[in-house]
């Protein structure tokens, strides 16, 4: 009995930890998995944010805005290498989330670029944000802050 109780506690603790490490949000047919951002660096007022967006619906939607209190702007950027040149492009028309598709914002690729960050973002804290989708509407989320050098995405969590 005692063993069972210990196991149950362990299971709950384990579940809790997993839920904290990979938090999720739902709005309409969309699922937003583990929004995170990299810690700010001294001397720099930018930071980048990432998440996975899954569209369970049968119609496409579009992420059109990322609003946060901690920065002047949250823009959706795409980053590409053309030869040895790193190119940045702001997706001013938003980011399409096709029906049934998963779109992942991750390092070296699509990301939210926070411009004019007005507070220090320190690892192991969370900051509030709000996403706006063309059809599904608005959803409040929290970005988990990870160390500046973090390159992992959900794939290797």
């Amino acid at each position, binding site marked *: 009995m005692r063993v069972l109780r210990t196991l149950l506690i362990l299971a709950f603790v384990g579940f809790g930890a997993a839920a904290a490490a990979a938090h999720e949000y739902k709005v309409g047919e969309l699922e937003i998995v583990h929004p995170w951002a990299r810690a700010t*660096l*001294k*001397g720099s007022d*930018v930071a980048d944010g990432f998440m996975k967006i899954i569209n369970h619906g049968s119609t496409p939607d579009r992420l059109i805005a990322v609003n946060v209190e901690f920065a002047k*702007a949250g823009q959706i950027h795409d980053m590409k290498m053309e030869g040895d040149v*790193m190119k*940045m492009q*702001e997706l001013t028309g938003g980011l399409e989330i096709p029906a049934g598709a998963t779109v992942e914002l991750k390092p070296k690729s699509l*990301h939210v670029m926070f*411009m004019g960050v007005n507070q220090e973002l320190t690892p192991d804290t969370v900051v509030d944000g709000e996403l706006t989708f063309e059809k599904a509407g608005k959803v409040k989320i929290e970005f988990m802050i990870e160390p500046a050098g973090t390159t992992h995405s959900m794939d290797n969590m």
Partner: protein
Amino acid sequence: MSRRVLSILVVVVAVSAAALAYLYLNQGSGPAAVPIGGPIRLTDQDGKSFDSASLDGKPYAVFFGFTHCPDACPTTLSEIARTEDEIGAPAKELTTLFVTVDPERDTPAVLKDYISNFGGNTIALSGTPEQVAEVAKAYRVFYKKVPTSDGGYTMDHTAVLYLMNRDGKFADVIAYSEDHDRYVEKIKKLLAE
């Protein structure tokens, strides 16, 4: 004009055109190409003038970036610091020059704060836009401002780490896609040269 003179003229013109075309097409290819790199005379993070001649006899690495850079710059500077730690004592000879391609925003004071994030033996350099352009040109580095909707800008830029040998000559590059092991391998080789 006799027919004979005319045909000689045609031949002369054709041969000259062919010779010009040959010369033109051979430009920029082959061993006559201009070497990558050149003297770097800019201002360091303490506001003092810097001349790459001061590194004479020691190898150095050069990276062009900017402090508003989301990924390539912090990743590269962290990798270098990590590589130096891993190599240990021999890596003390290596200096990394972080040259801003955004001198308008990246003043020496901003750069001083910025490089303090990473550790590593790094000198951060800025200058007038003209001075920076001259150094970038010597390294064949491309950079361009890209306006953003908040009225600010980000930048496209060549994200390559240039490795220069003890004679200040181009030795190798580390591309952005290369992993930590390649950093260690290439920098060890540079130090051993």
